[in-house]
Structures are given as C-alpha cells and as structure tokens.
C-alpha cells in the first residue's frame, strides 16, 4: 500500500463522510483540522467504527492508550500519526 499523505487524507475523509451519511449527516464540508468528535457528524459508535476501519485499512493495530484526541482527533492528526508509526516501523526493520 502506498502511504501518500494526500491519498490518506482523501481516504479518511471519505470514510468520515460515509459513516456520517449512515447517521443522516452531511460531513462533506469537514476540514482537515476539525476535531471530529466536536463536529457532531459522528457519534461515539461511528468514531469507533472509523478507528476500526483505520486499523484494518492501514494494518496499524492500536493500543487502547493511543486512541486519544491528540493522535486521532482530526483527519490531519490521523494522517500524521499513521505516517509517523509506519516510519518508525520501517526504521526498526531497516
């Protein structure tokens, strides 16, 4: 899987919009730095679904203490956390 920053953002945004749609919400205007829980587009269960999708899509198992607002609170935060974790993993195996 190619870890392109822009492609990751597009994919996360699409997933947020899809999950919001299921709740009857239109999240198409969500900004990359918007705090996802604060937007009201997703409830707790939908955010949990977003996290599970994120783990499975990017093969990134998370510890419970990593699931916080600082690491995963926005599209940008999720993107940067993913890139950082993958870079660290690559460095360890190099």
């Amino acid at each position, binding site marked *: 899987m190619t870890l392109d920053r822009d492609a990751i953002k597009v994919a996360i945004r699409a997933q947020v919009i899809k999950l919001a749609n299921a709740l009857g919400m239109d999240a198409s205007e969500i900004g990359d730095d918007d705090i996802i*829980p604060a937007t009201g587009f997703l409830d*707790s269960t939908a955010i949990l679904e977003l996290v599970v999708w994120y783990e499975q899509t990017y093969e990134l198992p998370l510890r419970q203490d990593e699931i*916080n*607002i600082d690491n995963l609170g926005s599209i940008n935060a999720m993107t940067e956390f993913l890139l950082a974790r993958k870079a660290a993993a690559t460095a360890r195996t190099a």
Partner: protein
Amino acid sequence: MPHPLHVPRVNNNDDQVTIVEVAVKEGDFVKRGQIVGAVETDKAVLEVEAERDGYVLKILGRLKEQAAVGSVLLWLGEKADDKVPTEVGGARAPVASQARGRPTAGARARLKELGLRAEEIPAAGERLTEKDIEAWLANQERSVAKTQDVAPPAEQRERAPDVAGEFQDLSPEEHGMMTTVLWHRDQAAAGYIEIEYDPRPWEDHAKRYADANRLLMSPLMPLMAFRLVEIAASTPRINCAIVDKRRYQYGPVNLGFTVQAGQMLYLTVVRGASQLDATRFIETMGDIQRRAMAHKLAPNEMSGATIAFTSMARWNVSRHVPILPPQTGLIVAHSAPRGSGKAVLGASYDHRLLSGFEVVQVLQALAQPPKPSSGEKA
C-alpha cells in the same frame, strides 16, 4: 450415528396417518429442512422435513400405507454406512389394516361413542367386534406413550411456510440471540420499569472526564455502565439470577454491554468489572468494543454476564425494552431522544428475583453521576 426420523402428528385427533409421498431413496444425502416425504389425514397434508443433514440409511414407511404417529419413518446417518439399530430399526411402523366385514351392533355403538370409523380399526375376524376396538384402543395408548418417550412432540415443530424459499443455518451469533430471547421468554419472569431523568449532569460529567483524559470518544455510556457495576457491587441482590428455582448469587460483577457491529449485535462482557477503577474499566470496554467491531472477540468476552447495560440512544429511540441475557436478573437500557431534553433509563428484570421497588432504586441511583471521589480523574 444413526438418527430416526419419526412420523409426525398432523393433528391431535389422529394417531394414524397415511404416507402419501416418499421423496427420497436409501443412499440419498439430505440436508436439514429438506422435504423427505408427506403424510396426510382426512383433515390435512403435512410435509416431513429432515431434522438434520445425513444419509438415508433405511426407509421404513411405505407409500399409501398407514403409519402410527411417532413410529420411525426413516433412519438418517452421518455416514452412508452407519448401521441401523436392529432392535428398533427393523420394526416397521404399526400399520393398520381395514376391517373386512360389517361391524357388530355392539361395535357400532362403541364406534359411535368414541367417534371412530370402522375402517380405521383392524378386525381379527370377519366382522369388527367390541373386542377388536378395545384391543386397538389399548394399542393406541401404548403407541402414544411410546411416541411421547422417543419422539419430540410434533405439534411443537413449525411447518415450513407455503411460500417458495429455503432453509439456511443460523450463524453462531444468530443462534446465540435466539437462545437469549428464548431464555427471556421461557425461563425468566420478566418485568419492565423505566424512569425519565435529566441527562445534563451525566453529560457534563462525561465531558469533564473526556477533556481530562483527552478521550476521542464520549465516555458517557462506559461511565454509566461502570456506575451500574458500582451499584451492583454495593447491592449484591441485583447481581443474581434464579437458577433451578434457587437464587444464584454471583461473586464477581461481569458487566454485559451490547455492541452493534454492522448487522451483528454482540453482548460483550467485561469480567471482574468491580475490580477495576473507572479508567481501567473504560479502557477494557473500549478494547472489547473495538474487537467486537472487527468480529474478533474471544468466547469469554461474549459469555458470563451477570448484569447488563445497553443503549439505543444513537438510534434516537424513546423506549427500548431489553431482553434479559440468560441467567441474569437485570439489564438496564438507556435511551435519549434527541431534542427532547430528557433521557430514559429502563430495566428488564426477573420478577422472581427483584421487586419493582428495588429496580426503581437502582435506576434512580444510576440517573445520577457519581460524586467526584469515586476514583475517576474528572
């Protein structure tokens, strides 16, 4: 291992049925639910379904013949070469023959008294006699008694709909749901009570907690579930079940919590919940919820609930009467209709165990967030 498929009962009044179709032959492999034949009385025709997958080892019922309800129609085996038990397998269904001559006057009176027809009863001689009728009745009683011993009551089996379709096996989760619902219906004496409460104190408490712990998801439901755990720990009577007509007092508080994962509804379980503080409880519940969403739960995370909590607030329902999980005495349901400014706590409870007053006390305690000293960071 061979399994018998018995001649089903069509209605309460007929202990004999006529085999009008045999749709399989020996050696065939049949699927559970597949129609293997049909029987009829003068009132109805009933298709006979295989109760399990298997090979047809031996067919004892014969087309157009009468057979006693509960007798063996055919034998199914898990393997094609399973042996049919000889002591019972060879015994054909009792088949009635017809009386050959006119009934005697005494027999006619007896038939009228019993509401029977002469054609139903075999005669030993040229004419049907009262003795023949009494012998036949005695045989029927033995037949019915045997049926009750060896065959599941046919009346409890549901007929396939008269609409084209096919049987499909339930998934383990669907089977679990069926077990839960049937336990609620058949084992518990379920009552339901609900109260309305002001949701703002809980919402404020959850927000403070989330801000203090930098949480991504609102901890409102986990915190309310944890409050129920605290109440159960301090009020052991609600952490019980009635088992075999006796109170079974649970030691640990194992909190059951429903998780909707796509089309699947799991009752996840945090074991030993009262041994955890709020932070650890929320982490544990979050971890289990995440694995439920990914359909990767361990068996012990889906069993052993001693008390339960569920919420349908995300679906904006105003009332939610929950089903008691097997061997629990109480499940609390949370609802919060959007825009109403109110929330509802409802409880299904086993009335053999708890009174309505006790349940109301639980709900009233749960409607209030804990005091800040209860071990949370907020």
